[in-house]
């Protein structure tokens, strides 16, 4: 009590010196507050960003690895029946290799079971069908001849003429999520997309849509044959809910499927964006997408794994559409929905353990995009840490120096106090408490100032980071004419380059965009540009601890001086 009272009196007495210390400590505390707040916000953003929301993951093929394996196999046993491709790559072998390695629905479900964490799944199966006389796709040209780029000779309305190159892009198990897969399935007039559940519909590759009439199909048997079509398609063909449509199988062998329109939807995004480069067929136009349930596809025998569409089962007899079988192949997009990033990592690990081959990778477009969106934030957090360390080091030194001079100046006081019988421990305690009072006032002021400044300052700093990151990306793009596929390039690096090779359009790293169904567009990463660097109790507590540590460290000088003081010295201290 005596010590406290004395300390308080001493604090109020030495105003000048203490105001100086308060100012210094306040500056240190303000800088430290901002630093801590930024770090805290960055950590929170990193941890919470994906932990609270669900994360989708896909298992994709490392296509390069597979193709190189296939190439070697083909060369070693050069008995390929490629009739026309003596100097061309053996596409068929390649495709076969890729197809063999495609995971089946059963495989996907096996991995879902092996996840070890709560996981829900959905999938879509996408195939292509041709129009009939009564049901035509939305298109501007009368036929899609113009889009044929290969030497395939047919000129019929059926758009089998999709080049081999078009097919090449469309291997099964599209790398990088739904987006990559969609693009390859461009043959045919329509894309017939089967959804396994409402979540799958919600994650439709063409983006979200609203129903303008009717309602979305169900998934049970009673709903089999039900489809929904786009408004544009309905208007184009003069169809309404309840009408029946007939589509033809891609094989051209007069197989037709009859479907019932139960709803008409309107894509939220503009339908004009769905082009897939010059060789995109009409089926790649989102307006020409027919949505149905997986059950319907299965009933029609179009689901993956059913014989009618599986590779090589149909004899490519006389038709010129040599690529028909692969073109009509059904694309399976299987998506795992996980509760947060941690679950995703566990899932990835467990799937590996469950026997996923080396040729496959588990990837999450959500996570990847999120990671790259955090680049400026990470830089900012690093900067904040540097700031914090420098400020604290300088602050500690300054405080120690001030305190040294302070104690030296007050040696006489120490002598008097010990001479009249006040214990050194009490004197030391008094000095420490004095310093503590002063530093705590400084910290309080600094925290208040820092709290007021941290949000604008941190957002300002973050904005700088974002713009520098963007200019880096821009300059890189200027150099390459596309997004550079470099490690660390924002949003880049994750996508296979296969979809960039055919079209001259800037490649879209499909992996960077979960809904990047309209590939072919350069997609800037949406950087995290706002952080909530508000000062919370945790930061205040940390600062109080830091302040306490700093005070004690700097008070150490004073304590040592006091302990070493011999009361006898007072007789020599005759001022």
């Amino acid at each position: 009590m005596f010590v406290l009272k004395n300390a308080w009196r001493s604090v109020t007495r030495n105003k000048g010196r203490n105001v100086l210390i308060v100012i210094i400590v306040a500056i240190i505390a303000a800088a430290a507050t901002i630093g801590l707040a930024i770090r805290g916000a960055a950590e929170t953003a990193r941890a919470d960003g994906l932990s609270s929301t669900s994360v989708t993951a896909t298992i994709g093929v490392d296509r390069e690895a597979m193709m190189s394996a296939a190439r070697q196999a083909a060369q070693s046993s050069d008995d390929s029946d490629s009739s026309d491709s003596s100097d061309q790559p053996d596409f068929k072998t390649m495709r076969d290799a890729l197809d063999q390695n495609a995971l089946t629905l059963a495989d996907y479900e096996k991995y879902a079971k092996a996840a070890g964490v709560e996981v829900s799944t959905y999938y879509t199966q996408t195939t292509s069908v041709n129009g009939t006389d009564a049901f035509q796709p939305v298109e501007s040209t009368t036929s899609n001849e113009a889009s044929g780029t290969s030497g395939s000779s047919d000129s019929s309305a059926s758009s089998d003429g999709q080049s081999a190159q078009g097919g090449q892009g469309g291997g099964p198990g599209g790398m990088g999520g739904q987006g990559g897969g969609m693009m390859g399935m461009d043959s045919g007039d329509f894309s017939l997309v089967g959804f396994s559940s409402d979540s799958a519909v919600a994650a439709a590759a063409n983006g979200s849509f609203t129903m303008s009439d009717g309602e979305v199909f169900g998934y049970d048997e009673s709903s089999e044959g039900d489809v929904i079509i786009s408004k544009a398609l309905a208007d184009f063909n003069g169809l309404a809910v309840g009408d029946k449509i007939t589509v033809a199988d891609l094989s051209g062998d007069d197989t037709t499927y009859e479907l019932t329109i139960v709803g008409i939807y309107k894509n939220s995004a503009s339908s004009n964006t769905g082009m897939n480069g010059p060789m995109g067929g009409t089926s790649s136009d989102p307006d020409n997408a027919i949505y149905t349930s997986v059950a319907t596809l299965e009933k029609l025998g179009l689901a993956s794994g059913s014989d009618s569409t599986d590779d090589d089962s149909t004899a490519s007899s006389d038709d010129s559409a040599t690529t028909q079988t692969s073109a009509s192949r059904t694309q399976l997009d299987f998506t795992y929905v996980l509760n947060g990033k941690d679950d995703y990592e566990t899932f990835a690990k467990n799937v590996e353990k469950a026997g996923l081959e080396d040729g496959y990778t588990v990837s999450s477009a959500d996570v990847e995009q999120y990671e790259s969106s955090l680049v400026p934030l990470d830089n900012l957090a690093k900067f904040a840490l540097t700031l914090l360390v420098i400020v604290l080091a300088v602050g500690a030194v300054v405080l120690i120096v001030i305190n040294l001079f302070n104690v030296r100046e007050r040696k006489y006081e120490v002598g008097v106090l010990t001479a009249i019988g006040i214990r050194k421990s009490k004197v030391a305690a008094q000095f420490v408490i004095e310093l503590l009072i002063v530093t705590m006032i400084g910290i309080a002021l600094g925290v208040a100032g820092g709290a007021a400044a941290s949000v604008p300052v941190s957002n300002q700093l973050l904005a700088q980071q974002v713009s520098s990151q963007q200019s880096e990306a821009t300059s890189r793009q200027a150099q390459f004419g596309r997004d550079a596929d470099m490690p660390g390039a924002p949003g880049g690096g994750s996508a296979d380059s296969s979809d960039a090779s055919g079209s001259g359009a800037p490649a879209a790293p499909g992996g960077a965009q979960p809904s990047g169904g309209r590939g072919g567009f350069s997609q800037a990463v949406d950087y995290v540009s706002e952080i909530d660097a508000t000062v919370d109790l945790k930061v205040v507590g940390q600062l109080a601890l830091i302040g306490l540590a700093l005070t004690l460290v700097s008070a150490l000088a004073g304590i040592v001086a006091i302990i070493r003081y011999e009361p006898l010295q007072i007789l020599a201290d005759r001022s």
Partner: protein
Amino acid sequence: MTTETTTKTTTETTTTAAPAATAGTAQASDTTQGDRPVLAMDHVSYAYTKGGKQVVKDLSHDFHAGRVIAIVGPSGAGKTTVLSLLSGLTSPTAGRVLYNGNDLAKADRYRFRSHDIGVIFQSFNLLPSLTVEENITLSMEASGKPFGKPKHELVVDLLAKVRLPAEYANERILHLSGGEQQRVAIARALGYDPDIVLADEPTGNLDMATQDDIMAIFRSLAHEEGKCVIIVTHSPAVADQSDEVFQLKPLRR
């Protein structure tokens, strides 16, 4: 080598027949009061460094309550050392300093200093940044003793005792003259009612009138309040006004 204890009779007191100085060992020299001394030096020696020059050698003396004892001696005789030994600022390298029969070296000397002895330093050692009242209450609080009255009243009483007006309570130390500071230092030493008052050259820089005034205060403390007042001085005038003189001789080497 020898210390001599000379007891002079003062005009006021008729006490103390002085036994002669005995060679070799110093002799306690109180016959008037049968009780044991408040403070006693028992064959005390002191060297600043271990095995170094002894500034005090084999010194013995008893200090009794109710008397003013002057410690005199030429420069270099170890007056300051004796002061620091008696005030508990340091401990002897040999011998004992006894307070009420207890060895100070083994006792809590911080408690001794804050409770039992009031030291008036030559340079007063008041805290200049504090007011007069704060200086006085500081030592009162340091003692931890309970006080029946509000401290301010005690301070005013003390100031009256050292013949300072009550208005001085809120003055800064540096605004006071040397004699006034001396009185404040005495007031501080008396604040917690110690048994022993130890003053180092209390009249060193003061004019004669003030010197007499200060000595009158000390005498009244001893004779009216029964305190043991020990004054270290080189002033014969002060020694003359004391009840007893403890003569230190310079050490011959």
